[in-house]
């Protein structure tokens, strides 16, 4: 009965939200968002700091922001500061997981099955493929969908595969720590370098190149590689902590 009341109450709230949004003349109906009246138009036209010269794939050179993927342009260039915060969230939550689950003597969680030979060999082969896919996604983040976060997670998941296929396997956690610290510090240092080079934190101080080429977009691919490494090592750390337990 209590559940039913809660259900009715929350559904009523939902209907109320829908009604208040549909009756709101400023709230655009689904599918009729007016992009040109929003700040997003600036990200598409690339005319935030420069005049609007038009953008053309494979032709435009040295725009204010280089990635062909507009979402990447926002995530890693226009609003890069958010991304720094987001990396920090993952960093601090992996620290928290380590504090909560970390114990002095650690061993692997016992799985119910013994991995056989085929599984071991197959997972080794897959490990390489998944790792390569992750790296590809990170490096092409400014051109195609994807980027540092999914790519980094894919790298972590290739390591997870090794965990699942081999019950003796444990990563060298310390090397992850070094990688994580290195990538994070470099991200902040690139930002501070921008402060000294061009007076702005996290400014894109490299050449932007031709829109759509692999070697373009200035510091964006570098930042994405750093994010990928950091996310990969953080998530590997989280997985490692979840898969270990105290050995009595």
């Amino acid at each position, binding site marked *: 009965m209590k559940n039913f009341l809660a259900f009715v109450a929350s559904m009523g709230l939902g209907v109320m939200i829908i009604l208040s949004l549909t009756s709101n003349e400023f709230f655009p109906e689904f599918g009729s968002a007016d992009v040109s009246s929003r700040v997003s138009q600036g990200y598409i036209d690339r005319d935030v700091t420069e005049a609007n010269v038009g953008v053309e794939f494979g032709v435009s050179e040295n725009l204010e922001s280089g990635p062909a993927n507009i979402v990447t342009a926002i995530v890693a260039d226009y609003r890069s500061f958010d991304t720094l915060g987001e990396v920090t969230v993952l960093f601090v939550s992996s620290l928290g997981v380590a504090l909560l689950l970390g114990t002095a003597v650690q061993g692997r969680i016992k799985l119910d099955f013994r991995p056989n030979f085929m599984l071991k060999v197959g997972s080794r082969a897959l490990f390489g493929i998944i790792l390569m896919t992750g790296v590809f996604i990170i490096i092409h983040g400014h051109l195609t*969908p994807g980027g540092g976060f999914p790519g980094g997670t*894919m790298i972590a998941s290739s390591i997870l595969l090794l965990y699942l296929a081999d019950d003796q396997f444990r990563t060298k956690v310390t090397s992850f720590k070094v990688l994580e610290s290195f990538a994070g510090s470099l991200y902040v240092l690139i930002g501070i370098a921008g402060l000294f080079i061009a007076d702005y934190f996290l400014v894109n101080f490299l050449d932007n190149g031709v829109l759509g080429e692999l070697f373009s977009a200035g510091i964006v691919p570098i930042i994405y590689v750093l994010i990928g490494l950091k996310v990969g090592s953080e998530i590997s750390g989280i997985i490692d902590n979840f898969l270990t337990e105290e050995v009595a």
Partner: protein
Amino acid sequence: MSNVIDYFQAYQLVDWLSFMISILLVVLAFLAINSKSLIKAVMFISSLSMLAVVGFVVMKAPDVAVTEAVIGSGLVTSLFVFTLLGVGKVGQK
């Protein structure tokens, strides 16, 4: 009533797709929250997240779709499963 029929006749394939996704999303969310078995709930949330990926693709957000597929559907599910594994809850109730 004829209004409603006209409304649905104007539907195109993508609209039908999004209609189906919407219904399935709500059903899966309800199942995920109300299922008694923890591991089933985890599987439901995983498929809910996978369905959300389709929703993201329908709404032309490939970046988000890739990220949600890898992180939301893959990583979060495995973390749930590891938690349940760690306390020996998989397979029970």
